[in-house]
């Protein structure tokens, strides 16, 4: 009798179950945070109770409906909007694409220009190019959007929408979003807020300042497979996709992911003040340690920044070699260097800021990082940079 073939997924399950857990410190949490214990429980509970189609009128359908409605209410109240203004997307990227596409089409009589900063995330820049004609506003060396140029760009009269991030996802620099919102409003241009790296980390501008907002649950420990779009009811949009019972994201979004997102949002906002105070101090400590290594450029605004993000570049070093070296010490870090990207192009954020793109290390602290992790990182970082430089034969430079 032949046994059933073992699939590679079941092999993976078996092998991970028997491993002794070793803490790999997540310093690459921006958009990829570890799901919290509460998030796991919420996900499991929604799998148990919310598997049915929430549009059905039977008992199971109503159970699912209650989970969906509660999730929506929670997210709406935290973002300061009405419940029906919250839409769950399959990812933050999908939320950006549909929101910006529908805004572009909804405003096509006014114009086809999209005003965006040069350091917006790729999903935004890609959507701006695909659905509109981007008017890309330069940033300063520390990553602040040029307010005068932004003001001029939104006032020219053919603008479909304008967008800015609250805090930059790569370098942490905060924008003066209330001012950007004000000048957009003065020109009657819908203003979209990219809060994907900011929700759960800093207090957001009041909802009166924006027309649409995108948030990313996987950034705050809510797990993958869901994004959040908050869209004010008065905003003029037109869908660019076929009609569906799920008006904004045809086919709908996984209910367990939605419920975990809502539960963990509440959790992370509750812990925000305490955690962000610690993270702010830790990033200052890492920033100082990095700045003391010879030929290292620390980038981004040192004070006006997200609490958990830091980026620096090391001269004469290959970014890939450096991230691999830090990985050996148990630290997962990101990088904006060309050699670490699939496209072999350097980070457009670093390029737009006019800072060094090679030897780049991008740190975003996860919610479970401790003082011990930070202390250990500070002690291994100079050694890691020195050993990569020695390996590349550039330690004499």
């Amino acid at each position: 009798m032949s046994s059933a073939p073992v699939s590679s997924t079941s092999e993976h399950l078996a092998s991970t179950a028997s491993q002794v857990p070793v803490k790999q410190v997540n310093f690459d949490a921006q958009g990829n945070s570890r799901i919290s214990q509460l998030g796991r429980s919420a996900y499991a509970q929604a799998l148990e109770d919310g598997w049915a189609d929430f549009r059905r009128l039977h008992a199971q359908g109503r159970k699912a409906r209650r989970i969906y409605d509660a999730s929506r209410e929670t997210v709406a109240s935290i973002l300061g909007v009405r419940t029906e203004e919250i839409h769950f997307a399959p990812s933050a990227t999908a939320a950006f694409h549909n929101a910006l596409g529908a805004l572009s089409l909804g405003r096509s009589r006014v114009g086809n220009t999209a005003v965006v900063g040069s350091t917006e995330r790729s999903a935004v820049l890609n959507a701006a190019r695909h659905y509109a004609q981007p008017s890309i506003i330069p940033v300063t060396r520390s990553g602040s959007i040029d307010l005068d140029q932004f003001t001029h760009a939104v006032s020219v009269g053919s603008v479909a929408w304008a967008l800015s991030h609250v805090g930059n996802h790569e370098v942490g620099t905060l924008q003066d979003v209330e001012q950007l919102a004000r000048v957009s409003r003065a020109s009657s241009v819908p203003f979209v807020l990219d809060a994907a790296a900011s929700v759960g980390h800093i207090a957001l501008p009041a909802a009166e300042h924006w027309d649409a907002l995108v948030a990313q649950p996987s950034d705050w420990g809510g797990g993958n497979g869901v994004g959040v779009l908050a869209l004010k009811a008065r905003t003029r949009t037109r869908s660019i996709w076929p009609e569906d019972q799920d008006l904004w994201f045809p086919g709908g979004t996984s209910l367990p992911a939605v419920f975990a997102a809502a539960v963990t949002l509440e959790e992370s906002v509750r812990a925000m003040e305490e955690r962000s105070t610690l993270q702010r101090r830790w990033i200052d400590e890492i920033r100082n340690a990095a700045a003391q290594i010879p030929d290292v450029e620390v980038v981004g605004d040192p004070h006006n920044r997200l609490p958990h993000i830091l980026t620096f570049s090391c001269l004469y070093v290959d970014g890939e070699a450096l991230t691999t070296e830090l990985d050996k010490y148990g630290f997962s870090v990101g990088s904006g260097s060309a050699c670490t990207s699939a496209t072999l192009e350097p980070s457009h954020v670093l390029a737009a800021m006019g800072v060094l793109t090679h030897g780049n290390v991008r740190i975003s602290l996860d919610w479970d990082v401790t003082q011990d992790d930070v202390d250990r990182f500070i002690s291994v970082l100079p050694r890691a940079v020195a050993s990569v430089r020695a390996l590349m034969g550039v330690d004499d430079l």
Partner: protein
Amino acid sequence: MSPNYSDASVNRPRTHETPLVPVPSARDDQSDYFLDATDMRCPLPIIKMARVARELTPGSRMRVIATDPAAEFDIPAWARLKEHLCSEPVFVHTPVWTVEFTVTLQ
């Protein structure tokens, strides 16, 4: 609408926007050193520049051409960190996309 472009192309001049400039031969320009860093992957062009800069005296001019997509940003950033003066970039199609700078050492 062209969906196929990558991140750095946000700042990269499009082919039709870039003036075609012939690459002057190393002989007929005014620089003291010509570094051909074409086909070198970053950070190699910067490493070569740092090595050359160490041998040259302050006031010398180093001309460099490179094809790596990061060179356009990293050469001026290196010059700024090392307090050298860096020219504006000149983009050339030879036929590969090439960037040229002249750095005056301080």
